[in-house]
């Protein structure tokens, strides 16, 4: 399997007054295409920080994060976020003045996705995730949590990036909706050869994915 993302001795800490709190300490790991990864662990262990660094939303204090053998710092974090990675947040992070369909189209516009019929393509992805045409054009704030999360996933899919990062994507959802989202993410990895990395508290969710990782003393370790 082809490595798409590597953590090479990544360190990250923050200052709490005069105290330095280490989150990641020389963390190294290789993520591959076609696999779905779960990062589990207690709150504050560094799961979300790992995802943020992998998503290019912040820089590690030291060490390198390599995307397809290129340091994401060299690619440029904005360019990296625009072309190479999609992020699904626990709180969906949808834009309120746009409806579902416009949110997906907006992400495609930013990434300059070129498909024959962009509008139909966006609508098709949303419908495949179970949203009706009417729901796609409804005020985004009037959709349920599950529907909003599906819009967030649709936005990630529409960007067509090889790396999809999800922060607690089922955290606010009921079990049935969660199951649908989990299956979609697994399908993205297995059927569309994406690398999906999910941060989750849920052991059941983690068990459904190909690889489970935990952060132990600042290092990423596989759980067997």
């Amino acid at each position, binding site marked *: 399997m082809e490595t798409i993302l590597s953590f090479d001795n990544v360190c990250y800490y923050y200052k709490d007054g005069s105290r330095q709190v280490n989150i990641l300490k020389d963390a190294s790991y290789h993520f591959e295409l076609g696999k779905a990864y779960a990062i589990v662990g207690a709150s504050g262990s560094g799961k979300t920080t790992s995802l943020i660094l992998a998503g290019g*939303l912040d820089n590690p204090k030291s060490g390198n994060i390599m995307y397809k053998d290129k340091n994401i710092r060299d690619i440029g974090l*904005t*360019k990296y*976020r625009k072309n190479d990675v999609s992020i699904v947040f626990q*709180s969906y*992070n949808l*834009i309120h*003045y746009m409806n579902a369909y416009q949110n997906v189209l907006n992400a495609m*516009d*930013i990434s300059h996705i070129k498909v024959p019929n962009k509008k139909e393509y966006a609508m098709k992805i949303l419908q495949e995730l179970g949203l009706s045409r009417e729901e796609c054009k409804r005020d985004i704030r009037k959709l349920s949590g599950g529907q909003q999360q599906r819009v967030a996933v649709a936005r990630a899919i529409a960007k067509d990036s090889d790396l999809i990062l999800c922060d607690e994507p089922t955290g606010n959802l009921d079990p049935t909706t969660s199951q649908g989202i989990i299956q979609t993410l697994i399908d993205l990895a297995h059927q569309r050869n994406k690398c999906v990395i999910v941060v989750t508290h849920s052991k059941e969710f983690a068990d459904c994915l190909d690889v489970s990782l935990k952060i132990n003393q600042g290092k990423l370790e596989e759980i067997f």
Partner: protein
Amino acid sequence: MFKNAILSIKKSVGKSVLLFILMAVIANLIIAGLSIKNATSKSMEQVRKSLGNDVTLSYNMRNIMQNRQQGEALDSVMKNITIEMADRLKDLKYVENYNYTVNVNVSSDDIEPVNMQENSNQTNDRRLDDMPRFMDSDDFSVVGHTTMEYLTNFTNKNYVLKSGRLLVDDDAQTTNCVIESNLASDNDLKVGSSFKVYSTNEDNEKISVTLKVVGIFEIETSDEMGGMMSNRQSPMNTIYTGLSTAQKLNDSTTTITSATYYLDDPDHIDDFQQLAQDTDIDFETYTLDANDGVYQKSIASLENMESFANIFLSVVIVAGSVILCLILVLTMRSRFYEFGVMLSLGQSKLKIIGQQLVEILSIALLAFALSLTTGKMVSNVISNMLVTQDNQSVVMNMEESNDQMSEQMNNRNLVERMQAPASSELDVSLTGDTILKLAEISFIICVVSIILPSLYVLRLSPREILVKREG
């Protein structure tokens, strides 16, 4: 960027309307400030132009009076302007025409002067009060000119030719003259009549010249006919002749009383004065006057209005930007999250600021369009208010000065003030320049109001923005 901006405006109607109202108010006030500023500048230019494009070389009376020893006769310290000196200035850049003047006091056995005391109650123009008059042996004033073509009283129609003609270049070596209609009628003079005048030189010798009337003029309006006036000082007893005749009566062919230079443009007055300073003419003794005193008095109220307009504009721009900034900072809190999402999707900071700018500029454009129709109304209201206040202050100043100054001085002051366009009304019409300036200022206000709060948010990393939002 544009699509998102329109979506955002449509979704946040309340905020958009609030911004529209605020920007319309700012735009209207800016238009008012700019219009008043423009109008005052234009009026000042008009005043400058109305005062003419002429500069006069004459004695510097103020310096002469100051430097004169006590008891010293004025004549002994006054140095005549030589024609050679005046010719040096007529060849300078900007000079289109010139007119040399020689004033000489004369008497006559053939004609009687128009008696000012007798005429005091006849017409308003011949007004006279009970003030004592200077004792004067000479009854007439002969004023010799190179040409009468540019004399302000004639060009301004204060004096109107009733019969005959004015003196032209061909009259230079003749004894032809132009007189006032009252002088003519009192002495039964007509065009073609002749009369003799004489002056006395330093050696007490009589110099006589027989003048021939070629033109008779009538005084329509004049502010020179105040109370303390001798017969000779009255414009009715002024006789216009060619330069050589006046020089002959003055017993000097090389000196003149004053020289007036007519420039190609009033805007070149300062440049001309500067060029004149570079010649060897002694400007302690002589002066180049471009009606600066009258100009300064005339524009005093306009300058007040202009400075008000400047302060008003500065306050509107600063306060407008601050209020707009504050509103945008407050609304920015709700957009924190949107910025974070956009950044996480890979949108550049520049494009995010660009979207904000497009939003505010779209609203500003509507406010701008509205202000083009309402701005003139606001400008009129403010300018009328200013003009009324200014006129009131003129009246108050006059009342205050009544205790100290004679009524005549007040009248003259009023005449001078009334000449200023500011005392009547200001033309605050919208010009292309004003509209362009408004667009420029509005654009700067929008850019500043957007960039400052945006930079405050966008200096943070996407993670920090999203964490703040989560918090």
